[in-house]
């Protein structure tokens, strides 16, 4: 019975993540009854969001793994890194993103097309990685360190196994695979929230000409927010459809986090 619920849970998560798959399907001829430019923007924003999330989880994941290893193998470096990450964590994430974008605002405004989009994405991935690293590194390094200092790891060291190999073995354990999955879900959720909130406030504060140059569902929601107040601007679906899709995606990540936390009890 428990296995059936697990399978159903994963099917639900796959369904909730389907907007990312649908965004990449060739849907040129599909008639939705909604304005074609809006539909195009919606697909484009979810494509770019999927790229942002994938790139951030890869970059942040690799750095997290590196810092996690380093904090166990070199405790002094680990302590210094923890201090730096603590300082980063005490600054609101939205402020970090604003400060990352400000220096490239001129470059983004003066260049059009692919260059601007790629630069904007790169800056955002940097900001999202920076803000998600403290929690991710802590989430990985603490349980890994705990396993490393347990009795059987000490025995492995006494048999002459190199430290790096012991850590690789420990990372392959079920407990650590769960930790990695939870860490990845945490990074994805944090990046999703930051990307959409940041795009929303930039669109609200600066309009269509503001940074970032890569489209995001948050920016699309902000661009069509007036339909809720003024019915002549368009149907309310223009606001609610991207909101509903974002809720689906967020819920999928929350379920992954929730499942893992429940299992940890």
């Amino acid at each position, binding site marked *: 019975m428990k296995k059936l619920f697990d399978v159903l849970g994963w099917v639900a998560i796959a369904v909730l993540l389907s907007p990312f798959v649908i965004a990449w399907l060739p849907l040129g001829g599909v008639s939705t009854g909604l304005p074609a430019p809006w539909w195009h923007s919606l697909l484009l924003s979810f494509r770019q969001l999927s790229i942002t999330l994938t790139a951030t989880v890869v970059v942040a994941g690799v750095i997290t793994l590196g810092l996690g290893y380093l904090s166990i193998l070199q405790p002094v470096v680990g302590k210094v890194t923890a201090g730096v990450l603590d*300082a980063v*964590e*005490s*600054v*609101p*994430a*939205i*402020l970090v993103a*604003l*400060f990352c*974008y*400000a*220096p490239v*605002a001129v470059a983004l405004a003066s260049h059009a097309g692919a260059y601007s989009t790629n630069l904007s994405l790169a800056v955002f991935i940097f900001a999202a990685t920076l803000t998600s690293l403290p929690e991710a590194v802590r989430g990985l390094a603490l349980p890994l360190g705990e396993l490393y200092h347990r009795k059987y790891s000490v025995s492995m060291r006494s048999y002459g196994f190199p430290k790096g190999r012991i850590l690789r073995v420990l990372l392959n354990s079920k407990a650590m695979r769960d930790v990695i999955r939870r860490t990845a879900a945490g990074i994805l*959720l944090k990046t999703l*929230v930051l990307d*959409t*909130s940041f795009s*929303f*406030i*930039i669109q*609200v*504060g*600066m309009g269509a000409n*503001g*940074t970032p140059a890569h489209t995001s569902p*948050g920016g699309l*929601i*902000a661009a069509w*927010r007036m339909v*809720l*107040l003024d019915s002549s601007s368009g149907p309310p679906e223009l606001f609610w459809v991207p*909101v509903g899709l*974002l*809720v*689906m995606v*967020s*819920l999928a990540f*929350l*379920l992954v986090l*929730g499942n893992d*936390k*429940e299992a*940890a*009890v």
Partner: protein
Amino acid sequence: MRFLRFLAVELGLRGVVFTLAGTLALVGLYLLSVGSPPEQYLKSGRSFWLMVTLSPQFSVENAGFSTQQIIGSGAAITFPLALAALLFLVLVALVASSISASSAYLAAMQSGRGGWRLGGVGGLGASLLSAVPVFVGYWLLYGSFGMNPPPLFIAVVTVALGGLGWDAARFLTLDMKRQIEMTHTQVFSTLGPPVGRVLPLPGSVTGYLLNSSAPRFIPYIAGKVPAIIGGVTIAEMVFNFPGLGSTLLDALVNRLTDTLIASVFVLLAVNALVAFLVKAALFVLYPRWYEKAL
């Protein structure tokens, strides 16, 4: 002596020094990244000093908000909003964890399943609410109340939507549930205390569980202060409150260094002040745990 050390570390080092150094570092990095000439650094340093000393000479070159207005806005809007959101976050976590932990306790003691099912439905509802982006809630508030929504509603949206409340409630619930099966809880439950289903009141089972979980929960709450400030900053941009939010955005893009210094300083100061209040609660209630956390 311990109290003096607490003040020195939390108010002096992590409060004043972090706020001043953080403002200088962020503005310095900004100037570096936009390629400002050396004289601009000196000018910004002087502006920083004028701001810290509340000189009327600060920011006379820039039209817009004065330092007093920005600091006043931080004191009158950002700080109370952040504090209200923090208190609501704690309340949500306490109520949710009491309901969930008491159901788990009763299920363990009486082998009941109803509580678990109720908890599952409640958990799904909370997850759904958390999946709604916080800015959507702000915009709905804007649609209902215009530019002046009740501050309490902003605090409620900041916590209930976007995952802050969900995460805090889960953190405390899981920590309390972990202790239900432990020997000390079993011994306490033989005294026949009330369960405390809605709030973890002193003398109840959930109150006892909370007493054990609080030393971990309070530092967790302190770590969430930047996220609350981030949410409040978004609200300030949506509702265009004077002094912060959109002013910070304008300052960054238009290179208004004085305004930038004042906005960053106020945001970091509010952040540090709220975090200090939470740490003070930990120090007063659980001094040993505070020492351990150091």
